[in-house]
């Protein structure tokens, strides 16, 4: 059965001992579309993304309940192959965290972990994805120096290349352009629009104009809850709640 919604979330709650981080989230995320998540800082956007590939497992203080289906597989079932779930998804985290290795190895790492051993293939893909994010020219002469020596913006593009190189089905991008100049941002946005035909993208951003340019579906969150969701037209032109209206007004 072909389902149009690649991710379905039902009654998702995430709490710590003292705080409710996500409250009763119900969402459907359409395949081959760009879904944009908006919301003020601290409302739980990053946490929501982390639930989608079970990185919440790493944080024992987070209690997760509810259901998340990805390709009709409930990923919080105990017998799920977490590695396989994570391989489907590429997470581009909010801050760039280069792995403690060279620039080249940073991109090659994921490929090796996915079982690609052929050196030639790896080299081609590394170059290809570094070109995609517009980093190749800047680093081609120092591929084997530490990635940590790059500037923050360069690191962010490197992390982008690293995440794209493993060719996940779903790309979870947490403010992927927050440290980039307008020209690099634009390149990345174009890249995303192009990726849409083969991938599903979930994008967190604080830039409203970027959201408008990219979104097929918009989700607005506030204090751990989904307040509104719909097409960009519905959200940006006809906001229903006062919170969203306020948010959009101050965003301009």
């Amino acid at each position: 059965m072909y389902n149009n919604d690649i991710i379905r979330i039902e009654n998702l709650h995430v709490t710590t001992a003292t705080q409710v981080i996500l409250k009763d989230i119900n969402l459907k995320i359409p395949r081959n579309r760009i879904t944009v998540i908006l919301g003020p800082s601290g409302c739980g956007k990053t946490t929501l993304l982390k639930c989608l590939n079970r990185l919440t497992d790493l944080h024992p203080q987070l209690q997760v309940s509810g259901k998340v289906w990805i390709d009709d597989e409930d990923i919080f079932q105990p017998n799920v192959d977490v590695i396989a779930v994570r391989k489907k998804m590429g997470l581009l985290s909010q801050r760039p965290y280069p792995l403690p290795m060279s620039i080249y190895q940073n991109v090659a790492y994921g490929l090796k972990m996915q079982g690609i051993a052929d050196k030639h293939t790896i080299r081609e893909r590394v170059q290809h994805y570094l070109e995609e994010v517009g980093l190749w020219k800047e680093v081609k002469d120092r591929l084997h120096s530490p990635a940590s020596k790059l500037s923050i913006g360069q690191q962010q593009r490197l992390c982008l290349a690293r995440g794209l190189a493993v060719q996940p089905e779903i790309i979870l991008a947490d403010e992927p352009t927050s440290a980039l100049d307008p020209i690099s941002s634009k390149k990345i946005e174009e890249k995303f629009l192009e990726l849409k035909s083969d991938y599903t993208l979930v994008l967190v951003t604080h830039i409203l104009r970027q959201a408008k340019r990219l979104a097929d579906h918009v989700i607005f969150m506030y204090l751990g809850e989904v307040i509104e969701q719909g097409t960009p037209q519905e959200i940006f032109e006809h906001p229903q709640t006062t919170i969203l209206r306020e948010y959009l007004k101050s965003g301009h």
Partner: protein
Amino acid sequence: MNREKWIEILSEKWMLLATLLMCMLPLSMGIGLLIESMPLLQQYRLGSLIRNSAWSPAEGKFGMISFIVGTLWVTGLSLCMAAPVSLLVSIYVTQYAKPWLMRTIHIVMDILAGIPSVVYGVWGVLVIVPWISQKLAPTFGYSSSGYCILSGGLVLAVMSIPYILHLQIEIFRTIPIELKEVSLSLGATYWETIKHVLLRQARRGIIASVGLGISKALGETIAVLMVVGNVPQIPENIFQAGYPLPALIANNYGEMMSVPHYLSALMFASLILFLIICLFNSVSHWIIYKINRI
């Protein structure tokens, strides 16, 4: 000129002075030891002192090689035992264990670190020495009194593990969790993440922690002295007695009678120990420096 600027200059000068004093300390210690060893060094050739194995102060024989070899053996053995054990424990405790186990380990470490050296020595004499002489050595086809360099290394390892472990746990705890998230979301398993990312990120710290642990172990005297046998010979296997430099100094200082050059020889032994530690530290710094550039 205004006041702030003067204060600025003055405080900078003070800090510089304090730093210089710090740097002078080891140097002055080394020079002091060298001056004290001069009487011996004027009488004997340096090369023959170091190469010779005969130790008999009453007959004027001050060969040092057995003590140097004994020191290296005991330290090397303890390193081989302490480094892997503490690395495994620190990885397990920080990456797999539940929080209560972490707390327990911390308590255990504090207790172990607080036990006086002499108690470790007694434990070594009562437990390790008989075990080696009755069980371990016969198993490998050797006969041993149990007072041997292996006992020394083992006691030293047990003493340095809490110290090394403490440093390593801190190192693993300071690695940002996001780094693990990155590796996992690229499709690595948990173990691959530990192997390729965490150990790599921590390697400098791991080497430094082992280096510090060893430098400390080199100076641990009492416990080792009680179990190592204190026979001035070059041990042929780990079940034979040895005589590390710290034990030599501690055993004989104050009992030199009026044997000529005896005091000077002990100072020379201290100087060698001092140099070994310096050398060891330089090597570990050099390794860290090398790693830094990769």
